[in-house]
């Protein structure tokens, strides 16, 4: 066992996969220096031919990723901020997501779109988004959002090996997290939620960094409420089985997600709970998300993105207290 930081768990996963499969390469903006550290150190190990600093042309980077993937490679495309997936949207949503279908299942697009996501640093509307719902809404894409270093490493390895385009959003606020990582190899299959904390009174389904806020809230509510925290880890595929099993046990559920509320991740999960476990609910499914607003910057950010006090309040409300 060794301790790894969140970012280092990601870079180690990429390095292991690059060593394992010569078809894996990294392309993106500043991937050699890696301002968000996810690809740091790779150029020293694998050279600039496999860790390619590209121009600030998101369409070209993402399009080249799709083309190379269709031609048999497994690129990891680093868009730096996850927000920039909007700049690359034509290539991600129209192309990567649909090429397998358009090619009648004969040509896949195995690639990873990597982006640092979410708020916490007051960076404002163009650098603080976590565009999860948009990805979920586009059939053909998968979506992983690890909430800790262990999951980050295992999910990244699965994402690189997957035969589909996988968006991998890692959260800025998770960067300081450190965790014990096994020396031996492990892969976390996409589509397996994890019960991060067991409880009996209320289920919290939380995504990405919100998992950590939910766990902290659960701790603070100890003695008052027994809170079960579920991290889907990947939103596509979505492990509804684990969520539904929990809801059937606690009969109450709140979904906490950092993307904006309207037509969001929480709305989708809530509806699936309604379809699959309505008779078990003692209260309507509730949700806590970012406000339907651009993500405010600086001191105003906390009024848009859920913070710990609101998370605690949302769990209490869902639990009926």
């Amino acid at each position, binding site marked *: 066992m060794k301790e790894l930081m969140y970012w280092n768990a990601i870079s180690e996963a990429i390095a292991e996969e690059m060593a394992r499969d010569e078809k894996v390469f990294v392309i993106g903006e500043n991937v050699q220096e890696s301002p968000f550290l996810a690809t740091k150190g790779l150029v020293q190990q694998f050279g600039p031919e496999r860790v390619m600093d590209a121009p600030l042309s998101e369409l070209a980077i993402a399009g*080249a990723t*799709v*083309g*190379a993937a*269709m*031609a048999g490679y497994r690129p990891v495309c680093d868009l730096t901020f996850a927000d920039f997936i909007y700049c690359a949207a034509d290539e991600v949503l129209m192309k990567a997501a649909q090429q397998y279908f358009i090619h009648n299942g004969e040509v896949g697009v195995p690639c990873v779109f990597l982006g640092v996501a979410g708020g916490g640093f007051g960076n404002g509307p163009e650098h603080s988004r976590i565009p999860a719902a948009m990805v979920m809404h586009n059939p053909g894409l998968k979506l992983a959002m690890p909430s800790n270093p262990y999951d980050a490493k295992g999910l990244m390895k699965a994402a690189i090996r997957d035969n*589909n385009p996988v968006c991998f959003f890692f959260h800025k606020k998770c960067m300081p997290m450190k965790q014990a990582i096994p020396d031996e190899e492990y892969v976390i299959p996409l589509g397996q939620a994890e019960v991060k904390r067991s409880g009996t009174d209320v289920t919290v389904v939380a995504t990405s960094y919100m998992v950590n806020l939910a766990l902290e809230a659960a701790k603070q509510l100890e003695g008052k409420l027994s809170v079960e925290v579920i991290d889907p880890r990947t939103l596509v595929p979505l492990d509804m089985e684990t969520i539904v099993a929990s809801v059937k046990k606690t009969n109450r559920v709140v979904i906490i997600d950092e993307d904006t509320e309207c037509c969001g991740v929480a709305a989708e999960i809530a509806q699936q709970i309604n379809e699959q476990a309505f008779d078990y609910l003692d209260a309507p499914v509730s949700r806590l998300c970012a406000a339907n607003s651009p993500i405010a910057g600086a001191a105003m950010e906390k009024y848009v993105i859920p913070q710990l006090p609101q998370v605690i309040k949302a769990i209490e409300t869902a639990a009926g207290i």
Partner: protein
Amino acid sequence: MKELSKQDLLHLYRSLIRTRKFDQLNVRLAAEGKLLTFYHSAHGHEAVGVGASSLARDDDYLFIHHRGHGLPYSIPRGIDPKSCVAEHMGRATGWGGGITGFHAVDKEKGVLSSAGTIGSGFVLSAGYGLAAKKNGRGQIAFCFSGDGGVQRGQFHEAMNLCAAWKLPVVFVVENNGMAWFTPNCDTTAVEHVADLAKAYQVPGEIVDGMDVLAVYRATEKAVERARKGEGPSLIECKTFRYRPHSEGRPDVSHYEPRSKEEIASWMERDPVRLFEEKLLKKKVLTAALIEEIAREADEESAAAEKFSFDSPFPDPARLPDMVYAP
């Protein structure tokens, strides 16, 4: 540059004739309401796709332009055009299994990712070029587009990236002066697309797109350069579409009918007839051979129509399995 043999010349001619016949078939089937999708005729554009894609190796990558929905680019490469017709009729024997509407696909011959969105091919082709360069086997990518597509940002991003990384991509732009109903002289101050290439340090050559040999020769140079690792080139083929943007649409410039004189003047330079006359003069073709090639193409397209009609529709139960690769 090697001399083209009689066989090479006849291959080009046959490809032009087959492209035209199959284009005419799709046009007729569209008018009869038998295509389950739209169709953008290649009439007038045949020499560009045929001339340039004849130079592709089987292991090259090829992104097609939407004129003829792949016919001018796939026919010279030995892809059976009946799979094009069947796809447009929504049949399981189509090149996309009947589930894509029209998208041309042939994995074995590197025909990847034909697109509905104009100008889609530039950055994808940069990706094919990147893969080709990494493979190190002298493969290249061909990217066909129209002049309208050039006005998208992807063109500029791809041109810049391909030039910077010396990616083996041959860009062939079919400049017919129109984007849908809008003449490009009203939407860009740049008359020649080749000038844009030069801005990115990419060689840009202007050729007569109605002359299949001129297209072939210009492409040959670009292909050689790409295979040698010297980077991308752009060939701008000045051409003309004889039919509306897509079948069933009005043939207008802005909102008024296109000039009959302009269409007639380009008809004088019909790419099929120009080549036919040239080959007759060279005695590569004879009247009898012309008739034989036309008859074969007629028979082939009639058989393709029947084949498509007789083919089953795809099983809709397949659709959910087509979203994600296992």
